[in-house]
């Protein structure tokens, strides 16, 4: 018999993933018993067999004793014990190991374990394989990465779905405080009344009274309370807005366009890892922004929803919805060795050109959206710009969909070295070009800058032969001033027309701080 001790005092995420695992174990003929902290509603537990409620324990040792007592009282012979809890750690495992032959830990916090097997589905890009490395025991095995994300069977083979083009979905998971989101939802209802808005209200949600009031005045607003499965909502919505949490893998499995934020520590993720899953729009503190700004971003995303769909298509790490089944099979068989999810590479579908044997250049695509921002905000770049502050994430996303730049990225072995861009403006029947570049890596040196400027000038000469280049270069940046001088840029201080155009195109550049130059 397999026992699952799952924490139900901090949301339902732990319980739900263990539930999907238990159902798969049951399919394999295993008898499963659950030990929980709180009474759970029937609709959550009805497919599960034995569920036992444990008394609240003040310490880990006390909880372990409660578990052992229950096993004895119920005469349960436990072969394997699965633990999924943030409250219980190696201390609890150590105590239970005295009574159960095999302990399996489900975790996502990279903690030390005594369990023979540790399952952690968190994707941490190239660092996924080294999670737990510092604390791993020699005999311990690991199932690491999204291949082992334990989702409902409803998330299998569900990437190709017919989506509504007028349906928004909001969710905060099993709990969450809806207070801050209510104003945003009200704004959407008033600004975009053609959209149906589905709110998924979890069983532990708070501040929902105003939402009920809002629903009375807006027929397009649906409050869906504690649904059994969200798969169909994910599959049909145009855009999901909500807390990241367990929705990350469900969104990825269904390839749902999404804008998410964090409401708990375990929802903090590295953006590069989210990019690998095709999840490009995560602003941790989104709900702290003024509602009008959030609305602006949501509307920009809706206007560009086809582009966001495409961004989800070709991803480094796929979620196939088979994780629970995979884990169940591995738990019930002899696991030969640890298993770790591997990412696919070469995902950007863009034409590469070789500038040297090892350096390539390609057009920037939508999947570069976060890498572009991260590079732009590197301290070594920011000081050279006419806007020296960090670019805000929300502003960047809105700008990304509206910008008309020709942007390119120079790479070495697929790793960005620098970004370069130019943009054409027509002012009084004359074409003008402006452009710039910024480093994406500490490896960028003078030669790369020279190489990319050389390429850019040749490229724009072919594409826009009649255009005049104008530029502003920070006077402190002696290297770039010399580089451009070598490339044929000259001061335009004596040319009133070019000066006026340049000042119009670079309103933040002062004559005191920047050299105004042109070519052509």
């Amino acid at each position, binding site marked *: 018999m397999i026992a699952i001790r799952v924490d139900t005092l901090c949301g339902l995420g732990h319980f739900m993933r263990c539930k999907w695992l238990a159902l798969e174990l049951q399919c394999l003929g295993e008898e499963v018993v659950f030990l929980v902290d709180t009474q759970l509603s029937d609709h959550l537990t009805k497919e599960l067999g034995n569920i036992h409620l444990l008394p609240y324990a003040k310490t880990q040792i006390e909880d372990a004793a409660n578990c052992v007592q229950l096993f004895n009282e119920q005469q349960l012979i436990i072969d394997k014990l699965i633990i999924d809890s943030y409250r219980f750690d190696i201390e609890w495992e150590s105590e239970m190991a005295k009574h159960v032959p095999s302990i399996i830990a489900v975790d996502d916090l990279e903690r030390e374990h005594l369990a023979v097997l540790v399952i952690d589905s968190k994707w941490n890009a190239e660092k996924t394989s080294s999670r737990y490395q510092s604390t791993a025991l020699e005999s311990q095995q690991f199932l690491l990465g999204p291949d082992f994300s334990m989702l409902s069977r409803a998330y299998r083979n569900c990437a190709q779905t017919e989506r509504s083009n007028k349906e928004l979905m909001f969710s905060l998971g099993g709990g969450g405080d809806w207070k801050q989101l209510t104003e945003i939802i009200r704004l959407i209802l008033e600004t975009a009344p053609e959209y149906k808005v589905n709110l998924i209200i979890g069983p532990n949600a708070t501040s929902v009274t105003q939402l009920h009031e809002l629903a009375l005045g807006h027929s397009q607003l649906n409050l869906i309370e504690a649904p059994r499965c969200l798969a169909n909502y994910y599959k049909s919505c145009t855009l999901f807005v909500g807390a990241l949490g367990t929705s990350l893998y469900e969104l990825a499995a269904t390839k749902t366009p999404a804008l998410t934020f964090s409401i708990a520590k375990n929802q903090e993720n590295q953006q590069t890892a989210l990019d690998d899953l095709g999840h490009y729009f995560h602003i941790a503190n989104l709900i702290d922004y003024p509602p009008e700004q959030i609305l602006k971003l949501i509307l920009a995303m809706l206007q560009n929803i086809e582009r966001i769909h495409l961004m989800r298509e070709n991803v480094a790490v796929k979620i196939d919805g088979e994780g629970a089944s995979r884990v169940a099979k591995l738990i019930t068989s002899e696991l030969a060795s640890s298993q770790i999810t591997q990412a696919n590479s070469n995902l950007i579908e863009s034409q590469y050109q070789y*500038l040297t044997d090892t350096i390539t250049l390609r057009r920037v695509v939508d999947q570069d959206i976060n890498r572009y921002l991260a590079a732009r905000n590197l301290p070594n770049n920011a000081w050279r710009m006419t806007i020296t502050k960090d670019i805000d994430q929300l502003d960047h996303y809105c700008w990304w969909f509206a910008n008309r730049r020709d942007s390119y990225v120079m790479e070495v072995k697929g790793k960005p070295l620098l970004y370069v861009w130019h943009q054409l403006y027509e002012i009084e029947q004359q074409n003008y070009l402006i452009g710039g570049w910024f480093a994406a890596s500490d490896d960028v040196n003078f030669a790369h800058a020279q*190489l990319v400027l050389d390429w850019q000038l040749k490229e724009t000469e072919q594409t826009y032969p009649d255009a005049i280049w104008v530029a502003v270069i920070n006077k402190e940046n002696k*290297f770039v001033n010399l580089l451009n001088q070598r490339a044929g840029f000259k001061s335009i201080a004596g040319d009133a027309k070019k000066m006026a155009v340049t000042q119009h195109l670079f309103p933040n550049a002062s004559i005191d701080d920047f050299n105004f130059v042109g070519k052509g």
Partner: protein
Amino acid sequence: MSDMKQDLIQSVQQFLLERGVFVEDADIAEYDFVAAGALDSFEILSLIMSLETEYGIAVPPELMVDGENAKVGNLATALVKLNDSN
């Protein structure tokens, strides 16, 4: 060693000296002015431009991307080759 290569090496050695970087004759061919960190990007570009002016050659950007050409001897060899091919 060709005269031009010798001249190029001496020009680089003099350029370094004027910036307070003294490199012995015996070491100059193997001296890597990028790895040594003695010159910043501006100075390196200045060096390239001064060699271009002095020897009437145009140094393509690809040439300096190859890290091996940051060694004075290799740079001189590459520039001689470039000069000969023009």
